[in-house]
């Protein structure tokens, strides 16, 4: 399979080094879950991959072309922790809006928006405003928006963090289904090991700050889910202890 995203030696310093050096490849069609202890720079790394922040070191290549901060690539869709829908627009207007820069005519934009809202399980709610639907539905709409631009890479930053356990489980299944239906390459940041083990095909575990890649695990079902979760739990506990005891 072709390499979609190549992260080589990416690091980020604020006042202290947050990300030391991170390298990994993502193949086309992979569902990668990025895991790590709180504060290890998962969100920062995702923002670098999405071109929202510059890296201090290293390079990011998407389809062999460098990702430049400040000039986000239209081939990357991002789902944030918050839905970031425009509250004054209906769900379909929200999705149709991001198709404008792609130069599609208005009628086509609306048709595409409706199709992806349907795919995200929001058929019948197209003309609702975000304030009139539940948090889970808003996050579905945000996912529909990210998919509508037909991104080469879909970045998701703890998109279900604000949802209750029930909705979280439902949304995990939904994302997994959407991934199968669309064949998109997904990079999904989470701090929940159970979540990562439930949906990712590849799990990338980051170490404590200043972070590196501690482990890359293929989640193809050959290792039982329970055993995998236990192993990851142990590793994360070690990293958390290191981060708290390490004096950083």
């Amino acid at each position, binding site marked *: 399979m072709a390499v979609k995203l190549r992260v080589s030696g990416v690091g980020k310093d604020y006042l202290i080094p947050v990300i030391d050096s991170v390298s990994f490849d993502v193949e086309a069609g992979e569902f990668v879950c990025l895991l790590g202890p709180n504060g290890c720079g998962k969100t920062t790394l995702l923002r670098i991959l999405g071109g929202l922040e510059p890296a201090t070191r290293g390079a990011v290549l998407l389809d062999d072309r460098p990702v430049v901060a400040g000039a986000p690539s239209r081939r990357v869709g991002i789902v944030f922790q918050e839905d970031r829908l*425009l509250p004054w627009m209906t769900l379909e207007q929200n999705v149709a809006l991001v198709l404008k820069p792609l130069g599609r005519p208005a009628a086509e934009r609306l048709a595409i928006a409706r199709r992806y809202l349907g795919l995200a399980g929001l058929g019948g709610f197209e003309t609702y405003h975000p304030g009139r639907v539940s948090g889970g539905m808003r996050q579905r709409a945000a996912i529909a928006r990210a998919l509508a631009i037909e991104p080469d890479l879909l970045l998701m930053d703890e998109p279900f963090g604000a949802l209750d356990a029930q909705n979280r489980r439902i949304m995990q299944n939904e994302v997994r289904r959407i991934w199968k239906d669309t064949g998109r390459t997904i990079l999904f940041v989470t701090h929940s090991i159970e979540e990562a083990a439930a949906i990712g095909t590849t799990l990338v575990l980051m170490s404590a700050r200043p972070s590196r890649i501690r482990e890359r695990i293929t989640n193809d079902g050959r290792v039982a889910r329970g055993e995998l979760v236990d192993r990851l739990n142990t590793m994360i506990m070690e990293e958390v202890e290191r981060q708290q005891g390490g004096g950083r």
Partner: protein
Amino acid sequence: MKSLDEWADRLHLPTLVVAAVVVTAWSLLSWRYGAYVLPAPGAVVRGLVEIVASGEIWRHTGASMYRILAGFGGAVAVAVLMGLAAFVSPRARGVVADALAVLNATSVFVWIVISIIWFGLSSWAPIFTTFMITLPVVASNIVEGVANVDRRLLEMGDVYRLDGYQKFVAIVIPSTLPYLVAGMKVGFGLALKVSVVAEIFGVTSGIGYIMNYSREILATHMVFVWALVMILVMMLVDKLIFDAVSRRLAAWR
């Protein structure tokens, strides 16, 4: 029983009771001190009917409204430009904020005196005064609105490569509009109150002029009549225009 309560609320029944008490006290005081100091409620109502019948009400209210709309309209236009500047450049934001602080600290009277010196005895004096007084009110609201545009939404716009114009139309204008309307509501009330003061000097029409004239010819009841006209205009504009616009803007909530 519940619907009776509802109707009582609708008609502002408790307010009407208080109003009845006030009018009664007013009548007694008027009877005690005489019509020059405090004209009777009946005389005021008769006066209002008179100016409506003679059409005088439209001449003076129209003249005042024309000046208010010119001065206030100009202020809204300039305030929007200031908000735009504040949005585009952080440096301009600082300058605008400082300028507004100075304008806010300037008394109405300063502008009235200066406008008489500059524009003499013409409509421009109340127009200019209204403009200078309402500008900081409307502009500070817009600038605050612009500063409160959710950065996370703008970043979302960046992710999906919306250009400056698309972000402005889809994100900045809708988030700033409620601030603009709130600023205009307060600004218009202020415009009405300020322009009539400026009309005392040098013009021969308008509610301010006619109130001062009525005082000079000892027609105290007409002072009350015109005050009533001002209050009615203010309440009508508030209910018919600003409340309706606010409701429309909040339709998605």
